[in-house]
């Protein structure tokens, strides 16, 4: 179980997370939704210890990772697999070396076992026979799938998806959604996804949490979120520019919904 309590994180004068609380139950898929730049990826990186919050605690299976030293933190990080927004495959390595990267470093497995695992994990994400290709030779969707194979190669307890469908065409985005569901059903991993793609959020989640102004605005099942009366949630899920959420565009502070245009 992951328990996030009162975490704050600022970058310079920009306060991204402002006393955020969230609990992720074992075995569920929780999706964090929110506008671009609202701190979704920062929250994910705080969960896995890539960023240290300024205050508050992040408990992974009862251990507060904000207090851990580098070595102990690495042991907790080993419980996680992460799918990065841009796949983050290592350019200089082949697909097989990418998928096997964690295996080679964390465990003393014989070569034949590693090869078997690479094939098995690539098959799980629907890829075959591309072991010797370099990431530059793959399409966007294939890169994400290889990155997913790399994330599940070490049989993690938790998997984090940072914008899994961003940058893909709608069909490939749905293929990735299906894969997430399939892996969820088969491997029983606890999954946390961040996205601003509502189609994807409704499809893959057991619960959805809306992040707004550094805090969780509302948490609920996809149905509860769909029927939410909260104006912030309502504006976001109906993809409207009118409402309490104001986007900063150039010199404008946003549309204030007065009907008189930009102010």
């Amino acid at each position, binding site marked *: 179980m992951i328990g996030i309590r009162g975490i704050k994180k600022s970058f310079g004068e920009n306060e991204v997370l402002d006393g955020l609380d969230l609990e992720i139950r074992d075995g569920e898929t929780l999706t964090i939704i929110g506008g671009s730049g609202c701190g979704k990826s920062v929250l994910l*990186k705080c969960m*896995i*210890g*890539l960023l240290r919050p300024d205050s508050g605690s992040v408990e992974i299976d009862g251990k507060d990772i904000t207090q851990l030293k*580098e070595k102990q933190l*690495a042991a907790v*990080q*080993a419980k*996680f*697999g*992460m799918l*990065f*927004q*841009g796949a*983050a*495959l*290592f*350019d200089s390595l082949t697909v097989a070396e990418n998928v096997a*990267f*964690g295996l080679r*470093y*964390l465990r003393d497995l014989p070569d034949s076992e590693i090869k078997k695992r690479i094939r098995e994990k690539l098959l799980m994400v629907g890829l075959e026979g591309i072991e010797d290709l370099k990431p530059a030779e793959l399409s966007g969707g294939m890169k994400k799938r290889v990155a997913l194979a*790399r*994330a599940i190669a*070490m049989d993690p307890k938790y998997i984090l998806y940072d914008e899994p469908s961003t940058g893909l065409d709608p069909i490939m985005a749905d293929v990735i959604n299906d894969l997430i569901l399939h892996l969820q059903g088969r491997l029983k991993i606890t999954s946390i996804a961040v996205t601003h793609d509502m189609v994807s959020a409704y499809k893959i989640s057991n619960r959805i949490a809306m992040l707004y102004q550094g805090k969780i605005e509302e948490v609920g099942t996809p149905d509860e979120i769909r029927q939410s009366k909260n104006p912030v949630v309502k504006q976001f899920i109906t993809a409207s520019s009118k409402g309490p959420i104001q986007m900063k565009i150039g010199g404008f502070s946003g549309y204030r919904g007065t009907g008189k245009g930009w102010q």
Partner: protein
Amino acid sequence: MKKNPLEIAGEEILKTAETFGGITHLLLDTFRSLFRPPLEFKNIIKQMTEIGLQSFPIIAMASLFTGMVFAFQIGFVSTNWLGAPTFIGMGTAIAIMKELSPVVSALVISGKVGAQIAAELGTMKVTEQIDALHTLGTNPVKYLSVPRFISCLIGVPVLTLMADVIGIIGGGIVSAQKFRVPFNVYWEEIISYVRFDAVAHGLVKSIFFGLIIVVVSCHEGLTCEGGAEGVGKSTTKAVVFSMILVLIADYLITVFLAAIGLGGEQ
């Protein structure tokens, strides 16, 4: 709000202090990781081959012409002042070994290898590959910095030694062609007057230069931020910073080596 010049100067000083702090921290971290197994042999050999192959042709050209021009200057001055081209071999060899070849090689390596390290690690940083390393249980300093560190610490002195040889050959060519001093006379002069101290003096310097280049470049790469523009800025900063530090360190190390008597007599 517009900042006043004092604020801007203050910010720059703070930033530079922060950079030096970061570089020192990375240096200590790299040292610590150096003695923690496993050593990435495959990666070290790959880095060393890249450093050697990339830099050797340019270093060879640079040191050949440096040797040639230096021999020309000594021959020219000694002919005018003393009436005959004397001390070309000794003068060229000492200058090449103690000063020109370590410094010229380090400047070329800063531009070639330093830029490549900063750009490669910077791109890895902005495309989240460094974060990915963490999530795969791998320490980026151990996996990325240590192999480059070892390669530079061995590669830079080896390239400097090669530059010594090529520079002296360059001087010999000018001495024979321009001033009619046969190569064997030029060589005899070097053998009889130049001691091993001069080579050691240059090599000690080159080890420190290698260390400066690799730590500064790795630091700039690993702390890079802001997409393609950030990678460009980090790369430029790595090269400029390494070059300036190499020149400052050159003076300080020379004074120190002269004080302990290594190459100080020549």
